[in-house]
């Protein structure tokens, strides 16, 4: 089935871009396509690094991770039967990340002290909020340049969502990341974003800055349901 029809988005280094849309509009599909998990029928995904342009279409997920693009999948997708520490190690599977393992690990425990306290606990036995922290930390372990975060707020209490957004912002600034985040939680997501897109039925219907998004009619119509 064709899910994405007319999607063109771009990000420049150091930006935080959000992709807004309700369920079933193609947000997760777009992220999976960038990661090479779902192959696109047509189109290009260009990644530019140090002046060299690479088309990501046709590359395997592991090759894309090797280029420094990592995703935090929807619903966290941790390894529930492995410990927190083992989950983090697995985030650093690519060769370049293994060299920075110790540094990244201590950084993760600094941002999320809870994970440090629970390093030997099984990931599946933690609360939803802690699991989301672990999912983010696992992605950070791969020393990414670009972080794709798919609906981080799913199933979390509002206070946890706002803490999470603060952590994402903090990590982005400390590690010089470029972030693409899909969200349904409009107000929380616009707080940390520079720009955003609204996707409706697989088409980008609106693009604009943070402020433009907030006052937009489409947002009200499709998104807030008024």
């Amino acid at each position, binding site marked *: 089935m064709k899910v994405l029809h007319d999607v063109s988005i771009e990000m420049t280094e150091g930006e935080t871009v959000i992709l807004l849309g309700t369920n079933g509009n193609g947000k997760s599909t777009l992220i999976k396509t960038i*990661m090479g*998990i779902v192959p696109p029928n047509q189109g290009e995904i260009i990644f530019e690094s140090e002046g060299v342009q690479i088309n990501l279409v046709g590359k*395997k*997920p*592991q090759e*894309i*991770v*090797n280029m420094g693009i*990592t*995703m935090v*999948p929807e619903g966290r*997708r*941790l*390894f*529930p*039967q*492995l410990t927190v520490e*083992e989950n983090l*190690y*697995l*985030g650093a*599977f*690519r060769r370049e990340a*293994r060299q920075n393992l110790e540094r990244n690990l201590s950084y993760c425990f600094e941002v999320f002290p809870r994970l440090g306290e629970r390093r030997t606990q099984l990931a599946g036995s933690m609360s939803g909020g802690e699991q989301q922290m672990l999912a983010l930390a*696992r992605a950070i372990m*791969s020393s990414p340049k670009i972080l794709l975060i798919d609906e981080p707020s799913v199933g979390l209490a509002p206070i946890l969502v706002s803490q999470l957004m603060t952590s994402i912002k903090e990590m982005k600034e400390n590690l010089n990341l470029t972030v693409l985040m899909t969200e349904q939680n409009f107000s929380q997501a616009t707080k940390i974003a520079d720009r955003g897109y609204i996707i409706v039925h697989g088409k980008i219907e609106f693009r604009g800055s943070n402020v433009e998004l907030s006052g937009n009619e489409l947002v009200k119509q499709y998104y807030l349901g008024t």
Partner: protein
Amino acid sequence: MLLFLGAFLITQNFHNQYYYLAAFTVLQYIILSQGWNILGGYTGYVNFGTGAFFGVGAYTSAMIVKTFKIGKSAPFLELPILFIAGGLVAALLGLGLGYLTMRIKGIYFSISTLALAFVTVTIILNIDALGGATGLYIIRPRKIPFFTNYMEFLFLVMVALSIFAVAFARYIENSWIGRGLSAVRDDEDAAECTGVPVLKLKVFATMASSTLMGVAGAAYPYFVTFLEPISTVSLDVGVNSLAMPLIGGTSTWAGPLVGAVLLGIIQQIALVTLSPEYSLLVIGILLVSFVILAPEGIVGLFRKFRASLKK
């Protein structure tokens, strides 16, 4: 090293042949269950077709013995050649299985390995060059320098191979490969997202596992001296090498080792005191009770016990 030296001294001073035969079987199962555990335990792909890999290793080695007759001119060189050849052919079969079953998971993978065992039996039965249903006779070299009996030499080689198998499994477990395999076991899609090369690791695990099984098989012809498809590529081999790691515990290298030694010895005792049929029954009963009462095996029980002591 010490173990190996100890085993060497035993062969020099102790000559009751029955114990060597019994020990051979136990050692063979150490190799088989370590091999099984790389795919079944670390990666989570349950293989019922150990017999196929074991049998392919055995038949490869028997054919080399029969065709090239290196045993007489170079008795110490022959076994390594047999092991390498048996391991290689089994690894190729593993590679084929790995690619064919790439996208099959869980129970469907297990069924396809079961099918592989039956296909292998049928193929061997219908190829006259492999002896067909009549089987193949393999004559053991009568004499070997430094040892009073060939069986004692074979025993010593099996000790060395078992040590290698345990060390190999242990190395994999503690390396990045082992980490990646446990990710594949836990959630294949998540592993893919994290950048773990799932496909490569799966094919690697299948090949490493089948190589060990093939090597174990390569020693078999000289042990039985008569090779016949139905008892070689048998379900007994498959069930035993699955039951031993499960009973011992699949999460670490110690599990298959403990399971193989314990069950292997119990089975040998049952074989002598009761009957061959009962020896398999023992395995069956133990397997069922462990799956129900202690799903993490003996190693898991031991860990729980140690944890409760600390408290």
